[in-house]
């Protein structure tokens, strides 16, 4: 009560509602498993999705898309559409050619990278099914959809370019005829000793295993498709752009650069955003088109993506062919790694398309010590939807290849796969460790995570069951898969991004504003799209400032109210954005301490701060709460001479290093050899993501990540036919696993703090996705190895497994997609099969 009375006296004769003032901070916010403060709103439908936004005079835009993978546009006639009642405007690419600009690619990975022009609406040629050809604008979305059918387009078909290897063969048809090649870039990277020399020097002691893995193309499938609303103030040439995006800040800069509208005249708002997984880390044609059309018409414009459009026109993920070679001495000591990568760019370069395989380049050596590493990547254009960042972005691909080939090497050496890993991984006392690929891993404890996973998994019991099933020729075989993964998070130190030719920095901004009543407003440039930023940020601020969790309000996703930011991707939010907030709170505290000292008439050095209260050393009764200090600052009656009457701070944090979460995932699968069906019997994950702010959020991220990685292993595949049509163009054919298809996840954690940031955090957004795909596929191969099966491509569909088991690679699907690699008949002799334990 005295606290309240004091506050009242400072503020004057204002009667306070009892709830207006803060209760004391109870402590323990960091690491507390709070339910997300975002959820009540989400589960009761009180959300503000982009498609929910409506404005006076709103017009609806629809996009006519190419039905052909590659064609010259002979003519586009919108006149019939324009005659339909309710249609306001219709434009071809040629109509908008002068103002639509070109979609940006911010990551020219080499100086001579081929960077084709990417008009939001195709003008001369279409280069993938789904490439925009025309837009119509109507009073309602029904009329707009009907009007699309009235637009007449004449195409002259050109050869599709579907297969990456065919695309770079001599005489291949070209995606961009004027470029003279389908090669976008060649990116060589030799790090450490020469691989060839190292293997040669080892002579007869060298054991070399080579494999080719295919990272199939994936469709990101965020629950909320994309959408954009542009509200112009024509007289002022000002525009508010609402977009279902991960990157409102980057989008603002890019829209300014693309359209020539001043950056200061564009406000971008990412309202509630329902998932992204990297697919909303981009600058899309429809965002530019809605802006350009809104400017032309002086009317607000809305476009909302359908799921069919989402699968054609939103970026795809993965799509790489990996030729990987690993060398070790006969005793199992790794010598080096050689990787030759083909990466499908699709038809154009989106925001960071070429950079995705390059991010992966640093992760192939994973957690293993070796001296030699040769990497080479060729980026290839095809007449397919552009690829770009998809959860993990380069790192899942790399992790899959190394974890799969470690198992293959173990088989070759007759070693237990876990034992071989232990022999070669970085021991916990060796950190910080300079990796062969040039990264410095700051911390980790692979032994601890693995030991915990083994305990949770009952590895010995499952191996015994596996042996029983093998010996009895049980139609249901058991396989056990291991993935001891790491990844790089916290994208990224700006100077590192600069050295990789990325077009921006990797910092993050935060701002703290103490309000007169002691409540705290926090702005963050990290923009949530489902992660729970507002909960985690509130916990960080509550803990640092000693204020109640509920007294913290987080403001994100609007370039007016949180004007600076680098947005959300690459598991960077906590590691960069969270640290920025933490550092901003320190600045507030520093100033609050000076004010408290002044109010308490004590020396600043004598002021102590704990749980939201400043007190004077040795005089415990002399104290001021941080809320009292905030109110005193607001009143400004009695501040130190010359002090600004505010208790706010800004911090822009640029990380010094990446962070390196790691973990051990163990998976047991049952394969029905009669049908080829794979069922995940057991899944154990132990993740080390450093210090944890909110374990509930961490667990949710791990669950979703594992599910998504299982999706790649067993279910998901974006299949194109020979004409370049996406034949898995809906959720009927593109199989995303749901709860009934997934096992119970047994999750555990170890906690080895990052040493590269003051919170000790590492990031968790992508860990599950990166770890789970190889764990599942290693289990599948472990089950099938006694049948002589060397490699099953992802996804390991029942039919693929059945064909591999029955020695038939015939009957490829009608699309002509690649069938099995290395399938052969049953091998009754069996082999070590990694089951030696």
């Amino acid at each position, binding site marked *: 009560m005295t606290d309240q009375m004091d506050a009242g006296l400072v503020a004057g004769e204002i009667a306070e509602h009892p709830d207006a003032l803060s209760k004391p901070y109870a402590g323990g916010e960091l690491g507390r498993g709070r339910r997300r403060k975002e959820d009540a709103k989400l589960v009761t439908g009180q959300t503000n999705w982009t498609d929910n936004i409506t404005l006076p005079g709103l017009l609806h835009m629809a996009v006519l898309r190419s039905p052909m993978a590659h064609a010259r546009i002979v003519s586009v006639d919108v006149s019939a559409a324009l005659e339909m009642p309710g249609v306001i405007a219709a434009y071809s690419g040629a109509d908008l050619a002068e103002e639509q600009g070109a979609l940006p690619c911010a990551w020219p990975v080499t100086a001579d990278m081929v960077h084709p022009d990417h008009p939001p609406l195709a003008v001369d040629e279409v280069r993938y099914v789904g490439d925009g050809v025309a837009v119509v604008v109507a009073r309602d979305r029904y009329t*707009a959809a009907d009007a699309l059918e009235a637009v007449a387009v004449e195409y002259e078909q050109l050869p599709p370019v579907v297969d990456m290897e065919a695309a770079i063969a001599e005489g291949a048809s070209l995606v961009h005829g004027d470029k003279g090649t389908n090669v976008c870039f060649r990116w060589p990277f030799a790090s450490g000793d020469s691989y060839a020399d190292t293997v040669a020097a080892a002579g007869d002691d060298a054991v070399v295993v080579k494999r080719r893995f295919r990272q199939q193309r994936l469709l990101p499938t965020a629950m909320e498709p994309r959408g954009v609303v542009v509200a112009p103030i024509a007289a002022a040439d000002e525009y508010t752009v609402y977009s279902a995006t991960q990157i409102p800040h980057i989008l603002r800069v890019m829209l300014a650069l693309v359209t020539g509208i001043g950056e200061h005249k564009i406000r971008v708002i990412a309202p509630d955003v329902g998932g992204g997984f990297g697919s909303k880390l981009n600058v899309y044609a429809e965002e530019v088109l809605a802006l350009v059309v809104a400017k032309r018409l002086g009317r607000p414009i809305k476009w909302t993506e*359908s799921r069919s459009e989402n699968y054609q026109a939103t970026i795809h993920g993965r799509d790489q062919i990996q030729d990987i070679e690993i060398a070790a001495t006969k005793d199992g000591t790794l010598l080096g790694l050689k990787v030759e990568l083909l990466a499908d760019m699709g038809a154009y370069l989106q925001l960071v398309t070429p950079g995705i395989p390059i991010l992966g380049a640093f992760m192939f050596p994973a957690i293993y010590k070796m001296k030699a590493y040769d990497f080479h990547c060729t980026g290839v254009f095809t007449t397919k939807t552009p690829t770009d960042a998809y959860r993990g972005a380069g790192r899942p691909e790399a992790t899959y290849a190394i974890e799969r080939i470690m198992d293959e090497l173990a088989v070759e050496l007759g070693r237990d796969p876990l034992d071989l890993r232990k022999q070669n991984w970085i021991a916990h006392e060796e950190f910080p460790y300079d990796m062969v690929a040039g990264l410095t891993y700051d911390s980790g404890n692979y032994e601890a995570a693995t030991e915990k996973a083994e305990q949770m998994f009952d590895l010995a019991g499952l191996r015994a069951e596996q042996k029983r099933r093998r010996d009895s020729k049980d139609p249901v075989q058991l396989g056990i898969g291991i993935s001891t993964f790491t990844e790089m998070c916290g994208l990224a130190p700006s100077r590192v991004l600069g050295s990789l030719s990325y077009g921006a920095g990797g910092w993050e901004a935060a701002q703290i504003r103490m309000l007169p009543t002691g409540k705290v407003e926090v702005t963050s440039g990290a923009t949530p799209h489902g992660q729970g930023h507002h909960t985690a940020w509130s916990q960080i601020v509550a803990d640092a400032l000693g204020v109640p969790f509920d007294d913290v309000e987080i403001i994100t996703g609007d370039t007016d109210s949180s004007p600076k930011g680098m947005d959300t991707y690459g598991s960077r939010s906590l590691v960069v954005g969270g640290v920025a907030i933490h550092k901003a709170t320190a600045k507030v505290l520093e100033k609050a301490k000076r004010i408290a000292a002044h109010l308490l008439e004590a020396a600043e050095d004598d002021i102590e701060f704990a749980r939201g209260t400043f007190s004077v050393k040795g005089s415990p009764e002399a104290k001021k709460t941080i809320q009292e200090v905030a109110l005193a600052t607001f009143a400004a009656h009695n501040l130190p001479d010359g002090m600004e009457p505010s208790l706010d701070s800004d911090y822009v944090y640029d990380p010094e290093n990446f962070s390196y979460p790691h973990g051990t995932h163990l998976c047991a699968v049952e394969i029905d050899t009669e*049908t080829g069906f794979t069922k995940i019997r057991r899944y154990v994950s132990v993740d080390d993501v450093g210090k944890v702010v909110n374990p509930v959020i961490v667990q949710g991220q791990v669950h979703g990540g594992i599910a998504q990685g299982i999706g790649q292993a067993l279910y998901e595949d974006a299949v194109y036919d020979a004409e370049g049509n996406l*034949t898995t163009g809906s959720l009927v054919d593109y*199989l995303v696993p749901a709860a009934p*298809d997934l096992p119970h996840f047994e999750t555990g954690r170890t906690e080895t703090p990052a040493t590269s940031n003051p919170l000790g955090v590492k990031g968790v957004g992508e860990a599950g996705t990166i770890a789970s795909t190889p764990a599942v596929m290693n289990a599948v191969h472990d089950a099938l190895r006694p049948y002589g099966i060397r490699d099953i491509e992802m996804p390991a569909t*029942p039919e693929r497994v059945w064909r591999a088991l029955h020695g038939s690679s015939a009957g490829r*699907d009608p699309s002509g997609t690649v069938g099995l690699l290395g399938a052969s008949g049953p091998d009754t002799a069996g082999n070590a099969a990694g089951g030696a334990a």
Partner: protein
Amino acid sequence: MIPPAFDYVAPTTLAEAVAALREAGEDAKILAGGQSLIPVLRLRLAFPTVLVDLGRVDELRGVSEDAGTIVIGAMTRHSEVLEDPLIQQHAGLLVEATATVADPAVRHRGTFGGALAHADPAGDLAAVALALDAELVAEGPGGRRTIRASEFFVDYLETALSPDEILAAVRIPKLEGSWGYRYEKFSRVAQAWAIVGVAAAVRKEGGAIAEARIGLTNMGSTPVRATPVESALVGASDLAAVQAAAASAADGTSPPSDLSGQADYRAHLARVLTGRAVAAAAGMSS
């Protein structure tokens, strides 16, 4: 994902529905839950001029008994089929198959009659109707007629109903004697269509199979009755005999080839799943 424009009528009696359908002409479609039709409209794969919504025709909903037969109103929802005591007691195979249809949201909107009239050979319920010798009751301007399931499914998405007829009810004879049943559905994810499904009902006498009824899902352009297996099963008293009979499950079928499976894989699955379904129905464990 915006459907083309159409007119919409929502009659409240079957007679009104028949009249509305006749008036609407050949370009009308019947809306009977909409779990197949609405996606087709949204993808603009069909352009009906009129939708006749049967959702308010109460007389088409519900389950009753008529001597030795269960009568299921065509507009009875899947979720109602699952919970109906009469169906549970006398047509358990239908309950088991219905439980595998898509997901709870679809089962709460979709209808039994709608699924049969749509005649998708990948749908789970047509094979069950076939295996249980169901009769389908159609109402049209010329009155009411009854069509046997074996004559109802004509081709891919095509039935014996004429364009002015409405499927009113499905009559399923009660299984008398000691019958066992099993619906074996094979799909890659729980919510997906069956790659192959097998609906089996068997009656045992003195430890051997005396009578078997087997319907196959997605093994041709219509649901298929596996008659060679049915006759081969008579007298089977052990697993080996069941599996020997199941070996002919794909005989005479023309399964499709698509992304989920090539024809030869489907034929193989039909044999494996038939063996499993019959074994389970007959209480023979492997």
